[in-house]
């Protein structure tokens, strides 16, 4: 069974600084997708970034980037130049290729200090 582990229940970062959120996953598949979703207090689930396992290049979206280590089954999210609006719960998710059974981690609550 695929599981997703986020070992940091809470993280804190100073505004304008950089923070990295950790995620590891367990799978026997070679093809899959990984995601980071953001859930602000409004409860909306917002896609932050997506990574295809067959791509070696790490995905980036503006201030958000990932460090994808396939052999280590690690998928961390780096947020650069943190902003107050980045404060939210962040969920790491795994989805097998050609299968819509997406599994979420327990989430990391990020606080951004002004």
């Amino acid at each position, binding site marked *: 069974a695929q599981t997703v582990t986020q070992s940091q229940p809470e993280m804190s970062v100073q505004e304008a600084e950089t923070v990295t959120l950790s995620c590891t996953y367990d799978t026997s598949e070679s093809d899959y997708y990984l995601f980071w979703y953001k859930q602000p207090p409004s409860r909306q689930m917002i896609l932050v970034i997506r990574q295809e396992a067959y791509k070696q290049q790490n995905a980036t979206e503006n201030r958000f980037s990932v460090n994808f280590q396939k052999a280590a089954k690690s998928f961390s999210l780096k947020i650069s130049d943190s902003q107050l609006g980045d404060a939210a719960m962040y969920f790491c998710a795994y989805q097998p290729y050609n*299968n819509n059974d*997406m599994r979420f981690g327990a*989430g990391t609550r990020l606080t951004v200090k002004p």
Partner: protein
Amino acid sequence: DTAVSQTPKYLVTQMENDKSIKCEQNLGHDTMYWYKQDSKKFLKIMFSYNNKELIINETVPNRFSPKSPDKAHLNLHINSLELGDSAVYFCASSRQGFETQYFGPGTRLLVL
């Protein structure tokens, strides 16, 4: 334009009542989902529909029944509500079953 919408946003009801939550997507996606997020924020998939056919049915009590009148709608009907059903329910959709999922705003259900 709202891509994935849910109604109602909040639902407070008594135990043993029957209630429905509606979901609509205007993205032209083929697959829709229902997730449950419990009080500890843990998010778990409940159902998935692809072209009106049920694909996933996790170990969800049969009091929960998804209904898809067409490709753009996936409603969740809950019979005989229990206290443990209190949670936030999210609808989502994707173009194909294995593509990126887009979530609705969630429905907070409180069973008293």
